[in-house]
């Protein structure tokens, strides 16, 4: 499956700025970030801030939940949903 521009932007941010200590060049949009224990609370806050600035949106606190951060694809879906509101 190809990547949407939103997915590409989120993936690049995660690989370069959040998982700088790991080699995740092969991270796919559908790969689970949670089952691999990649996201801690600090990384989640950074990712939320990035998405808000990059896409000009405000992600409500009650949407910062595991299902919405399962993968790059899930985060992109959340961004699109919030944008559409």
């Amino acid at each position, binding site marked *: 499956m190809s990547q949407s521009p939103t997915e590409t932007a989120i993936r690049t941010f995660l690989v370069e*700025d959040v998982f700088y200590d790991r080699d995740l060049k092969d991270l796919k949009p559908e790969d689970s970030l949670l089952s691999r*224990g990649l996201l801690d609370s*600090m990384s*989640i806050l950074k990712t939320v801030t990035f998405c808000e600035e990059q896409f000009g949106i405000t992600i409500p*606190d*009650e949407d*910062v939940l*595991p299902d919405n951060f399962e993968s790059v694809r899930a985060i992109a879906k959340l961004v699109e949903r919030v944008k559409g509101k």
Partner: protein
Amino acid sequence: MHRLLPRLVTDAAELHPAAPAVVLDGVTLDYGALEERSNRFARSLVAHGVRRGDRVALWLHKSPDAIVALYGIMKAGAAYVPMDPAAPAPRLAYVARDCQVAGLVTISDRATELDEAFAGRAPMRALWFADLADGKDAPRVAGLPGVPWSALAAESGDAFGSPALEDDLAYILYTSGSTGEPKGVMLSHRNCRVFTDWAAETFGLEAHDRVANQAPFHFDLSTFDLYSTARAGAALYPVSPRIAAFPAAVARRWAEDRLSVWYCTPSSLVLMLTRGGLEKLDLSALRVLLFAGEVFPNKYLRQLMALAPHARYANLYGPTETNVCTWLEVASPPQGDLPLSIGRACPFDETLVLDDALKAVPAGGVGELWVRGASVMQGYWGKPERTALALQSLDIAPGIRDRAYRTGDLVRARPDGNLELLGRRDHQVKTRGYRVELGEIESRLAAHPAVDEGVVVAIPDDEITNRLLAVVVTKAGAEVTADQLKQHCAVTLPRYMVPEAVEFRASLPRTSSGKVDRRALADPQSPKESR
């Protein structure tokens, strides 16, 4: 041995074997099963040569089996050494070698990194893989046999007579060390039980309680969760690793599960308040809320107490070396800005406020807090010099001497006798409830070939107590980016110790005595030079 920690489970299993001991992600382990499985695991450890006085490390996420493992290790007479599941493999390897572990409990996904980190030379006799429950073969690490969890079925689950005594080590908790290496705090069964028994009684834990477990097992807050709960025969609800990083998800789960006892760091409670939607949840089941590890900002504590006014609140204080040693019942929301005190000594300990000459300061004076009593650690593993500095023999009263622990915390007794925390004597800080020696991060920074000088400062933060900022001067002609330095730190340091930001400067500000002026660096108003 009636006062060993695993005895708590044995007793609970005798009284009510079908009562839930651990509930996690829809899986319930009852006391009968916890007792039986930890007996099986103790026998498996012994069969692979683990003996009384040995150490066995745990490197895996929370699960009912992780709890089976720590009780099994103690039953076998060994001490468990819980490692941060998110810590890099080289740190695990350092700790495993430092305290010469006889065994390691982990999961099979970790086998490759472990094999690399140990590079063919590991101190263990065997490794256990807690995820291999279906008869799959276990991988080999550094040429050592791997034992799949399914092999425990072959061991007997009958009562296991532990060879341990109450003053044997129950666990070793590694904390940040100022000289660049983590140090292992050695705690005995007795050290732990004086606190966990007292806490279970003081806060009235009963079999029908549902106790939250947020703290990871390498963090001493977890000892209340594990052992005060077991003493009451109550149910422990460890936070699912999947949701642990999401304050909104944790708060919602705890409200839905109607947990009655919570023990957390102020950082995690504040995040639930500010980002977790706590105000919309039904907190009617919450009966006891305990916090420790940091100062709770008054404005947030007031908010929290307004949301659950029926609950009982207490501020617990104590470094890992003493577990909890003082406490304050917070009967009503704090007024004004005066920080919450840390209260008075728990009945099993005694506090001393001393000057540099180790004499008691006059009433109301500022001094360093020393602690003596039954919860004080046995020392740092393999570090007699560090132990001798931290544990010293003092005059407690005329003609009476005892060993006391030097906390490094500056305190003052208020007129009501409660102790007020005023700061540190050294460069230890708290971030998200974790205790961090800035020197450990600095020595890692200094190990980078491009770094001439690096200092880490703590920038105060409302929600997580402190953020870490590295200020670095590079060597002439050397090039390095902030990301490269963070990567370099993350190779050996846990993530919470990796500085969030790196600032490059041409030189570091100095005080008149030539020391680095940390205060100026931590001040957001101070002029910054660009490279």
